C-alpha cells in the first residue's frame, strides 16, 4: 500500500448494485499524486469515449487530495471529476470542508460511481464498508435537511456528506453537490451527473488512520507554515474577513465583472455600493469562524441573519465569487439579496458563479429587448432589482418555468431561445468567474485553454496578474510561455495534493514538496513537480481531445479580452492579446495548436500516458 494513502479505490455500479474495491497502486500515486490527477487517469482509462455525461456510462469520481488525513495544514480539499454536461468534456471541481478527509478515514482514496440506480439512493461508506441505501425519503429535501437526516439514519453525528438538492435532482447543468452545508465543488455540472444516476448523496464516516512516512517532517513543516502564516498580513486578513473582504476593491479596480462584463465598476456600480457588498459590512451578522479540515486560518464564517427581507437565520458568509456574481455582475448592492441567494444555492445545490452569471445574461437580454418579460415568466429582470433576482434564483433551483432553461446555464439558454448569444460571457460554454482578464490578462489563457475551462483557480501567469505580483508589465505578451507553463504544471500538483490555494501564501513550493516527502517517504523536488504536473495536465487535456475538443473549439467571449475595449475606468483601452498568450503557451509545451496533441516523445518520456499515446498517436 502506498504510504500516505488509504490504499484503496471504491467502484460502485448503480445499475447492478455491484461494489468493488481496488488497490491503489504505488505507480498511480507516484505518477498522478491524488485528487483530479488520479481522477483523470481513472476516468480516461475506464470511461468510454462519447459517453453521455448524464447517461449510465458516465463516471463521477470523488477523489481525496493526497494530503487529506495526514495532519498536513491546509490539506483538506477533495475534487469531483466527471464529464461536464455543459461542455461535453473534462470537468474537475474542488471543494473544502471535511468530506475528503472523512472519505479517506473511511478507507478510500477515491470513490467512482457509474451506472444508474432505478430509484433514489445514497451511498454510505464507513471504515472499509460501503452500502447502497434508499434515498426515496430524501429526494426533494434540501442539502441541510438531508445532512441532518443522514446523521439519524447512520447513527453518526459526525457523518459527512456530499449532497445534491433539487437542482441536481432535476439534472440542471449548473447543479453541484454541497458538503458541510456550504462547501461545493461548484463548477461544471457535477450535481446533474449525480442526479442523472439518482444518487442523492455520498455519506462518509471513518475512524481509520492514514499512515505517513515521516510524521516528524510533517510536524516540522507545519511549524514553518504556522510561523509564516502568522507573519503574513494578507493571510491574517483572510482569516478575519474571508474572500468577501475583497469584493469592494475588486468591484472598483476592474478585477470583478460589472453589469455582465459590460460595466465599469467606479462609474456603474460606485463606491458606496461596492462597500456594501463586502464582508466588512456583512460581518455584522457574523457569529463565528468556519475552518475547513486541517485549516489553521478559518477564512469562512457563520452568520445569523434575522433582519432584511429574507431573514434566513443560520447561514454562512458568502465568498467573493458569490458576492461578485450576485453583486456587481448584476448591479445589485443589496446585501440581503446576496446572503439569501447564497443560502438558496447552498440549500438546493447550484453553482453560485454560473447562477449569477446566467441571470446577468438574461438581464442584458431583457434590457435590450432580446428576451421579453413574458419569456421571463413576467419577472421584471432589471439590473439591480433584488426581488427579481431572488425570484429567478428560486425558479432556477426548482426548474420552474423559464428557470428550467436558465438552470442549464447561459449558453444552453441562448441556444434554447435561439437568441442572446452576443451577450454570453463564457469560456467554451462555462460562465466566466469573478476575475477579469482585462485586469489579469494571463487569465485569458487559463480560461480558454485549461481542460476545465473558465476557472480562476487553475495555474498560470494569470494568478500573478490578479495580485499584480508579476515582474514587468502584465500587458507585455512577449515570452509568457515559460512562466505560464511552469506555474500551470506546479498548480496541478498543489491541487491534486488537496492543498488549499489560500494556504499557499504560507506553503510555498519548497514546503509543498517537503510535505509530499513527509507523507509518502519518497523524494520530491521541483523537477519532479513540473513533470508530474505536466503529466496530470496532459491526462486532463487528453480527455477533451479524445472527445473531439481541440484548441479551435476552446473559446472565450469578446468582452473578457477587451473587444471592444472599455471607454473609461481603470481598464480603459485595454485589449488582451489572448491569441499570443495561447500560442506562447502551446509553443513552450511543444504542442500543435491545430490538433492540440502533445508530441508522442514527450508523453513517452513522462510515462503513465500509455492509453493516451495509443488513442492520440496510434501506437503505444
Amino acid at each position, binding site marked *: 500500500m502506498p504510504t500516505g494513502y488509504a490504499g484503496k479505490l471504491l467502484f460502485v455500479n448503480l445499475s447492478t448494485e455491484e461494489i468493488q474495491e481496488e488497490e491503489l497502486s504505488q505507480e498511480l500515486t507516484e505518477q498522478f499524486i491524488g485528487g483530479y490527477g488520479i481522477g483523470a487517469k481513472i476516468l480516461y482509462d475506464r470511461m468510454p469515449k462519447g459517453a453521455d455525461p448524464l447517461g449510465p456510462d458516465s463516471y463521477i469520481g470523488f477523489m481525496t487530495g493526497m494530503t487529506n488525513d495526514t495532519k498536513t495544514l491546509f490539506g483538506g480539499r477533495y475534487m469531483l471529476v466527471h464529464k461536464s454536461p455543459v461542455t461535453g468534456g473534462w470537468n474537475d471541481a474542488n471543494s473544502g470542508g471535511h468530506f475528503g478527509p472523512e472519505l479517506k478515514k473511511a478507507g478510500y482514496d477515491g470513490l467512482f460511481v457509474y451506472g444508474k440506480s432505478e430509484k433514489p439512493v445514497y451511498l454510505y461508506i464507513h471504515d472499509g464498508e460501503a452500502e447502497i441505501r434508499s434515498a426515496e425519503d430524501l429526494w426533494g429535501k434540501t442539502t441541510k435537511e438531508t445532512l441532518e437526516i443522514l446523521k439519524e439514519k447512520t447513527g453518526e453525528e459526525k457523518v459527512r456528506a456530499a449532497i445534491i438538492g433539487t437542482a441536481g435532482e432535476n439534472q440542471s447543468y449548473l447543479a453541484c453537490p454541497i458538503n458541510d452545508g456550504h462547501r461545493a465543488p461548484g463548477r461544471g455540472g457535477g450535481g446533474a451527473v449525480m442526479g442523472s444516476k439518482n444518487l442523492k448523496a455520498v455519506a462518509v464516516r471513518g475512524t481509520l488512520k492514514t499512515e505517513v512516512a515521516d510524521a516528524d517532517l510533517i510536524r516540522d513543516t507545519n511549524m514553518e507554515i504556522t510561523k509564516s502564516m502568522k507573519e503574513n*498580513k494578507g493571510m491574517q486578513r483572510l482569516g478575519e474577513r474571508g474572500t468577501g473582504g475583497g469584493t469592494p*476593491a475588486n468591484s*472598483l479596480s476592474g478585477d470583478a465583472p460589472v453589469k455582465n462584463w459590460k460595466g465599469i465598476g*467606479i*462609474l456603474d456600480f460606485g463606491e458606496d455600493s461596492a462597500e456594501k457588498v463586502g464582508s466588512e459590512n456583512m460581518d455584522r451578522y457574523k457569529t463565528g469562524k468556519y475552518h475547513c479540515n486541517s485549516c489553521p486560518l478559518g477564512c469562512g464564517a457563520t452568520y445569523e441573519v434575522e433582519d432584511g427581507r429574507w431573514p434566513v437565520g443560520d447561514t454562512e458568509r458568502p465568498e467573493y465569487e458569490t458576492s461578485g456574481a450576485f453583486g456587481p455582475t448584476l448591479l445589485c448592492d443589496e446585501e440581503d439579496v446576496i446572503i439569501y441567494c447564497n443560502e438558496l444555492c447552498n440549500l438546493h445545490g447550484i453553482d453560485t458563479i454560473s447562477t449569477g452569471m446566467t441571470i446577468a445574461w438574461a438581464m442584458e437580454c431583457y434590457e435590450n429587448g432580446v428576451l421579453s418579460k413574458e419569456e421571463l415568466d413576467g419577472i421584471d429582470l432589471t439590473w439591480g432589482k433584488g426581488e427579481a433576482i431572488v425570484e429567478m434564483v428560486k425558479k432556477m433551483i426548482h426548474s420552474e418555468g423559464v428557470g428550467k432553461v436558465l438552470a442549464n446555464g447561459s449558453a444552453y439558454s441562448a441556444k434554447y431561445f435561439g437568441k442572446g448569444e452576443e451577450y454570453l460571457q463564457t469560456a467554451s460554454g462555462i460562465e466566466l468567474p469573478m476575475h477579469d482578464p482585462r485586469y489579469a490578462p494571463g487569465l485569458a489563457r487559463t480560461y480558454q485553454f485549461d481542460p476545465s475551462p473558465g476557472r480562476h483557480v487553475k495555474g498560470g501567469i494569470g494568478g500573478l496578474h490578479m*495580485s499584480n505580483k508579476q515582474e514587468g508589465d502584465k500587458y507585455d505578451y512577449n515570452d509568457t510561455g515559460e512562466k505560464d507553463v511552469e506555474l500551470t504544471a506546479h498548480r496541478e500538483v498543489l491541487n491534486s495534493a488537496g492543498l488549499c490555494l489560500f494556504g499557499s501564501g504560507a506553503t510555498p513550493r519548497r514546503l509543498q514538496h517537503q510535505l509530499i516527502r513527509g507523507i509518502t517517504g519518497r523524494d520530491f523536488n521541483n523537477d519532479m513537480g513540473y513533470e508530474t504536473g505536466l503529466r496530470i495536465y496532459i491526462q486532463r487535456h487528453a480527455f477533451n481531445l479524445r472527445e473531439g475538443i481541440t484548441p479551435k473549439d476552446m473559446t472565450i467571449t469578446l468582452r473578457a479580452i477587451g473587444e471592444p475595449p472599455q471607454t*473609461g475606468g*481603470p481598464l480603459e483601452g485595454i485589449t488582451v492579446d489572448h491569441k499570443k498568450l495561447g500560442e506562447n503557451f502551446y509553443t513552450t509545451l511543444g504542442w500543435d495548436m491545430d490538433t492540440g496533441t502533445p508530441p508522442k516523445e514527450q508523453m513517452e518520456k513522462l510515462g503513465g500516458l500509455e492509453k493516451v499515446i495509443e488513442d492520440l498517436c496510434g501506437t503505444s
Partner: protein
Amino acid sequence: MKVTVKYIGFQPLQELRKTAMEIPEGFTLQDLMEKIKESRPPYEKKLLDRATLLVNREKGDLEGTLKEGDYVLILVPLGGG
C-alpha cells in the same frame, strides 16, 4: 493645495481610509504615492505599489499632475476566491 485620498483594499492600511491631504502645486500622482508610502512599513509599501489608482473616477496616470480638489482612489484587490 488639497486633494482627497481614499483607500479601499482587502487589507487595511494604517490610518488610511479617507483623508484630505495637503500637497504642493505640481505634485504628480507618483509624488503623492511616494508621500503616502513614506514612513509606512515595507509590507504596506509593497501593497501600495500594486494598487490600482483612479483620479476623479478615471484611470490614474502616475505622471499626471494633480489639481486642487482631485479625488484619488487607491484600490488593493484580493486575488483569487
